[in-house]
């Protein structure tokens, strides 16, 4: 079973600190350097600031994840305890964007150094074509390999929670025990 991070709409104030933390955690460079290089900003968690709800949304690492199953080039795989993207295999076909019920998967520009495709100008001739940047899938990877998720750590309202698989089992177990006790209360009526 995969762990996942879940947002609590009753606590989240939409401050987007999680988005900044996530983006920076995956760039592995101090912000000053990021500023200098004007690195594009891509966060794998997105705060939905809608009139009716304010909450952060990201990948749930589904056990039979629609995105992985929809990928025609099998670039999304189960790796250890999370669903991982193999960047090099992705062709930017966006099937996963359609497949993900949470919209928690994006296609972003990447600087992989392999054969690129070209953009031809609207009406120009063939020779002034330019190389198009690479586009690959990006989604939450639970900060696998670098400790606990950066978003959970930064959230000032403690609205993000890393739900471990056994934690889920534990919670369900507790609920069963509570209900078992409740039944005992009205046992006499059942007889």
């Amino acid at each position: 079973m995969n762990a996942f991070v879940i947002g609590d709409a009753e606590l989240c104030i939409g401050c987007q600190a999680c988005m900044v933390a996530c983006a920076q955690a995956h760039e592995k460079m101090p912000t000053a350097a990021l500023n200098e290089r004007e690195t594009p900003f891509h966060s794998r968690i997105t705060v939905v600031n809608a009139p009716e709800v304010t909450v952060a949304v990201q990948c749930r690492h589904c056990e039979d994840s629609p995105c992985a199953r929809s990928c025609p080039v099998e670039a999304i795989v189960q790796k250890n305890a999370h669903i991982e993207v193999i960047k090099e295999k992705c062709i930017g076909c966006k099937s996963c964007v359609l497949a993900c019920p949470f919209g928690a998967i994006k296609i972003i520009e990447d600087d992989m150094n392999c054969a690129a495709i070209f953009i031809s100008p609207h009406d120009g001739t063939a020779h002034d074509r330019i190389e198009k940047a690479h586009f690959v899938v990006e989604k939450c990877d639970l900060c696998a390999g670098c400790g606990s998720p950066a978003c959970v750590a930064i959230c000032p309202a403690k609205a993000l929670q890393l739900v471990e698989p056994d934690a889920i089992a534990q919670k369900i177990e507790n609920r069963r025990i509570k209900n078992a006790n409740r039944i005992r209360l009205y046992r006499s009526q059942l007889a």
Partner: protein
Amino acid sequence: MEGLSTTLGSGAMTNSIAELHTMGPGDTIFAIGTNTTECHPIIGIAMIKAVKRGAKLIVVDPRATTLTQHADVWLRLQPGSDVALLNAIAHVILQNGWEATEYIAKHTENFSEFKKIAARYFPYKAAEITGVPATLIKDAAKIIGQSRNVAIYYTMGVTQHTSGVDNVMAVSNIAVLTGNIGRAKTGVNPLRGQNNVQGACDMGALPDVLPGYQKVQKTDVREKFAKAWGVEIPEEQGLTVPSVLDGIEKGEVKAVYIFGENPLRSDPDINHVKHCLEKVELLIVQDIFLTETAQIADVVLPGAAFAEKDGTFTSTERRVQRVRKAIEPPGQCKPDWQILSELIAAMGYPAAYSHPQEIFEEMRQLTPSYNGISYARLENESLQWPCPTNDHPGTPILHVGSSIRGKARFVPADFRLPAELPDKEYPMMLTTGRVVAHYHTGTMTRRCWGLRGVAPYEMVEIHPEDAAALAIEDGDQISVSSRRGEVLAVAKVTTRVSPGLVFMTFHYSESSGNMLTNTACDPTTQTPELKVCAVAVRKVKSPGVHLADTGFLQQNTAPEGVFHQPALSNAPH
């Protein structure tokens, strides 16, 4: 400031933020004109947690915000109609006898005058003016009337109107009417925008007062300061910002010295401000970055940031805290006190200070409310003024027992329309404000990679019905124009705003909302009406293949100083 000082005797926040952590069932938070979760996130969190513990929350805001999602009653009013709404709430409270009769009798004055005015604001009539259903007004009034404690929080949404002072007094009237003053979990709490604006006002950075709100008209006050400073103190009041600009226009003001303020983007009608600041003979700007205003200054004095200087900041809840230098200011930057003392010396006055503590000592002898506060005490604690003596613990809650001015005064006010309403030529209403990622004109936050990442460019909120009528889709490039200028930005189609209302910020130099806002101000405090003006919106074009080619954002980029959009800049063209 002006409103509260007339009604209660002090313009500052009456209670402390920590009280929010103790609020629960029986308590009510009344948030009016404050998008707290975006503009004061930590206070916003405390409010939401209080609601989760069982406190009631009433929110007055024309826009849907995170706060409104947790509100028990959301009074979604027409911008600028606060007085009508508040008077109607008072009307319902009086009608049902929920007012604190015994407190009113003992501690207030001018109640009969207030009752006469409030009697006229029937809920159904207020509903027509504010657009808020009468039933909701009654629900809110019931909660406010019957709660043990009601803490009122407000910010620019109340003050930045031509009826700004009336709004504040109407808020105060509610508190006084229900006796919610001078107790924990109550009070009238304006939340300050910047981290030390309370400290600046305390130190007399206002036209009519010297440090400690001591009126400059009082001769004894002037003599006290004159003796201490060894200079004559002029009697007439100073100029407010709008009157400074008029002064330049009329040739009376020859020089302007601007501290840590960027009027060329934060004041309304930027074209007018630009005209004046370019016309004035001498413009000095002291700031930590080369802001838009600094770029047209004659003299730029590089100041030091918070981590590069010693001193004190006074937070919105009147808490004075020590700020200690961690690193040396870069290049020619100096702390503000050092620049000023060198300037004073250069102008021939003896100003030999070697450390902010000396300045603080000189100030606290002259300022009763700060008298008991000293660097020594601040070494390991923070104090909330007034703190008259060295052993005084500070005052978390004002007006305990009786209000500072003796009796709390009801100051009734009638509803007045905003200065500029939508008409045929400018059919929509614009209200301005902030997004959580950026701070005022973006001088600091737009230089931070992460914040620029989550909020790269201006997104004008427009209602789906208005957008459809103008054939505008989410993400389209649109133009918003008013009688004072035109701005290009990206449209965000959302029901956060109501039909006919458009929302913009002033963070983005290349498409600043203040290019459009109205200079009309509150007659008493001259606070400009930034929350209401009439605009027209039209579609420019749908973004091409790449949103990056929102080239129009690049074409009219602000002068060099502002960091432009990295996220967009390296897109292939």
